[in-house]
Structure formats: structure tokens, C-alpha cells
């Protein structure tokens, strides 16, 4: 019996993972996801947090058959880089779609889903995935 998913690590990133919370530069307006404390465009450290829309389109994708420890039941897993309407690019899984139907340019929206479980005793890790609109 071991704890394979760190609870504090998952917990402290909840806003970014459940709500796609980004940081926005209050000087130049650049949106940063994952959230960061300094704008890499203008060097400003005064950033505020904002939830992203979760609506966007598939820029590129892969269907992963050979999966990491703990992910066999989810295979094949479709991963994509999704370009949100705010212009921000996000890496996440696609769900509720048959792999052969995934296309570049496909419109998708964010949904809360289970990412993985720490066997049958540990933490259940939730996060955002995207599904076809």
C-alpha cells in the first residue's frame, strides 16, 4: 500500500486544473498558462488570475497506445494541443470521441473528467479534458 499520487501537489494546482486559471499581465495583457509569476513578454511581475473559456480547436493530436504506469484502462488515450479562443494553447486529453474521428481544426470544449486513480485506495485525480462540441 503506497501513496503514488502526491495529495499536496494535486491540491495546490486545483484552480489551474479544474478551472483553467491562467495569469494575465496587467501591462501588456499576455495570458500565461500554466500560470506564471512574471510576464515573459514584458517582464512585468504584476499579474492577475483569470479563468479561461475552455472553448477552442485542436491544433495537433496523438493517439497514444503505449501508456504510462496507471493508465492502461484509459488506452488508447488521445492527447491534443488545443488552441483556446483567447489564443492560449493547452495540452490535455480529448474524451468522448473515437480516435478515428479526431481531426485537426475540430472544435472542442473543456469538461471535468477523471485523469487517473491512485489504485483503489488513493486519490482520484480530476482535471480538464476536451470533448467535441
Amino acid at each position: 500500500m503506497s501513496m503514488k499520487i502526491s495529495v499536496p501537489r494535486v491540491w495546490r494546482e486545483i484552480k489551474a486544473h479544474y478551472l483553467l486559471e491562467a495569469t494575465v499581465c496587467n501591462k501588456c495583457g499576455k495570458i500565461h498558462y500554466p500560470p506564471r509569476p512574471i510576464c515573459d513578454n514584458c517582464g512585468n511581475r504584476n499579474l492577475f488570475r483569470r479563468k479561461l473559456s475552455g472553448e477552442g480547436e485542436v491544433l495537433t493530436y496523438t493517439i497514444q497506445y503505449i501508456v504510462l504506469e496507471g493508465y492502461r484502462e484509459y488506452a488508447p488515450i488521445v492527447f491534443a494541443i488545443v488552441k483556446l479562443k483567447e489564443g492560449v494553447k493547452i495540452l490535455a486529453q480529448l474524451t468522448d470521441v473515437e480516435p478515428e474521428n479526431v481531426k485537426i481544426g475540430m472544435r472542442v470544449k473543456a469538461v471535468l473528467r477523471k485523469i487517473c486513480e491512485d489504485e483503489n485506495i488513493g486519490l482520484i485525480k480530476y482535471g480538464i479534458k476536451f470533448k467535441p462540441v
Partner: protein
Amino acid sequence: MRPARDVGIVGWGACIPKFRIKCSEIGKTWGFPPEYHGGLIVSEKTVANIDEDTTTMGWEAAKNALVRAKINPEEVEAIYVGTESKPYAVKPSITVIAEALGITPKILGADLEFACRAASEALEASIGLISSGMIKYSLVIGSDTAQASPGDVLEFTASSGAAAFVLGPRGENTVAYFEGSYSYITDTPDFWRRQLAPYPMHGEQFTGDPAYFAHIIAAAKGLMNKLGLRPSDFDYAVFHQPNGRFPLKVSVKLGFPKEKILPGLITPMIGNTYNASALIGLCAVLEEAKPGQRILLVPFGSGAGADAYSVIVEDGIEEKVHLAPTVKELIEDKIYINYTYYAKFRGLISKFSF
């Protein structure tokens, strides 16, 4: 029961998972005769995806309800999920849902359990909280990934889905309001799941007369008596629907014609979604009802209890129907899977450390 101040529905939403298994596939797997499940009047049922559970479906239904409610989500002051398939035995599902909706931390919230009736209890509690003026808006969710032992007759019907309602004081933004309610509970052990048991046990025929029928009829009659209404005063009736047959039978016993039942009878197409069963039925009815029409809603939970509600539809409902996916659209959006995928999605295959 009648609240001091009228409380209504501001928004509603459903989540119906995309995957379906045909009952014939389940019957064939376990060697039942093809006619065996015919009497249940359920042809196929939903199967939650491998990454869906009560929490994620509840979130999705709630999200749809909030879209229709057109309120700032942060105005929601209480949130409840009624379920009998909590992902964690101990640890609330509602905290995940509330956090992912962005409505924490100044809010009431809990997971409620009363078999398939827990979400209805949350409706009653929310009506009280809002009516008393303690809170303005409440979000009530019924969500289940219903368990059934492989090979049990329950497996033909036990499915997955969620429904959610934003309730608030009757006013400009409500699209229906609760005219009154009537609750009826007794200790009737027709269906249960013991601590640490993976699947429920049920009394088969015993789930009918002394449980489902006795409680629904008592609650419905009690409500009509109290409000001075007759079946002919209602335009629709939605009952808890563990299968397709029970609600049709109970409507005959109460004197409702079939056409008032069918719009809210969803189980034949998606199976029994437990805490969402009657509530998805209500969503479907709200999506076709006209202002001024009256709906009888009677959720039931084993163990046993039923609540009857009279719901009156108000102006402005039509404008909200297409703000989020309708029940009809969700039912039609489907992918069929075989028993192997079903078994994997439902966690019926034991893996050993992979």
C-alpha cells in the same frame, strides 16, 4: 408542504453519457432467453466513460443548469448532490464539483444519501432554505453511476447520468415554481447495499408493491388531497423510473393517461440513472412544456420514500430550452459498445497492479 414564499426553478441541465449498451447484448452475455428483459421496457442503457463518475457527470449537469439559469455562479449559496455511487466512501464529491464550478468557498454543500431519492431530499431542503430567505440560489444535483452485479437482472437497467437544477425565489428569472410537495417515508427494505459491498441486493418482486407503488401512490395522493387537485389538473406526470414498466403501471393506478407520462419517461432509452431518473424526466418535460402547465413529479428511493411535487411552468421557459443541450439531443448523441468495453468502463474487470 408549502413554502412561506414561492420557490422556483431558474435553470435545469442534464448529463447523459455518450456510450450505450443494448440490453440484448447484456442478456446474450449471461445466457438469458431473448424475451427475458422484454418486460422491463428498456432497450438500451447509458454507460459512463472510463473517465466519468458521479462527480464529473454532476459537474456537467450543473454547468448546463447554470448556463440556463443565466446567473453569476458565485450567487449560488448552497450545492447538494444526491447519489448512491460516491467515488469516495468518505470525502465529499460536492467539494470537487463546487470547486470546478468556481463557487467555493462561501457556500453550503453536502453529498446526500437516500438511495434514488437523495437529490429529491436536496430539493426539499433547498426550497426551505430559499423560502426562509437564508439563501438566494441553490444548486441541486442528482448523479449516479448505478452499480449492478454482473449477471443480476438489475444489470439490464442500472445506468449512468445526472440532472441538476438551480432553484431560487419565484420571480422574473424562474421558469417554473413549486406549488407544493408531500413526502412519505417508511422503513421498507426493498433494496440496499451494505458497507464495503460492491453491488446492491434487492427483493425483486418486493421492490414493487410494498415499496415503489405504495410510496409513490401515497405521496401523489397525499399531495393531490392537500392541494385539492385531481390527475386531470396535471398536464404531465413524471415518476421515478427504475424501468419502463413501473411508471406506466403506477400512472394507471393513479389514473393518469399514457400521453401525460410518455414525455417524461426516459428510462426506456437510457436505463435507470437512479438519483437522476425522475429528474432527467423533469428536464425533458420542461423542454417541451408551455407556461401555465402543471407537472406532477414523484421521485422515489428504496428503503423507502417518495416525494410528490406540483410544479407550475412559467413564462420565459422556451427561451432557455436551447441554451444548453436538451435531453432529446443528449439521448440521440450516442456510441454503442459491446460487453467487453462495458465491463472495462464499469470496472468489472479486476486488474492487478498495472
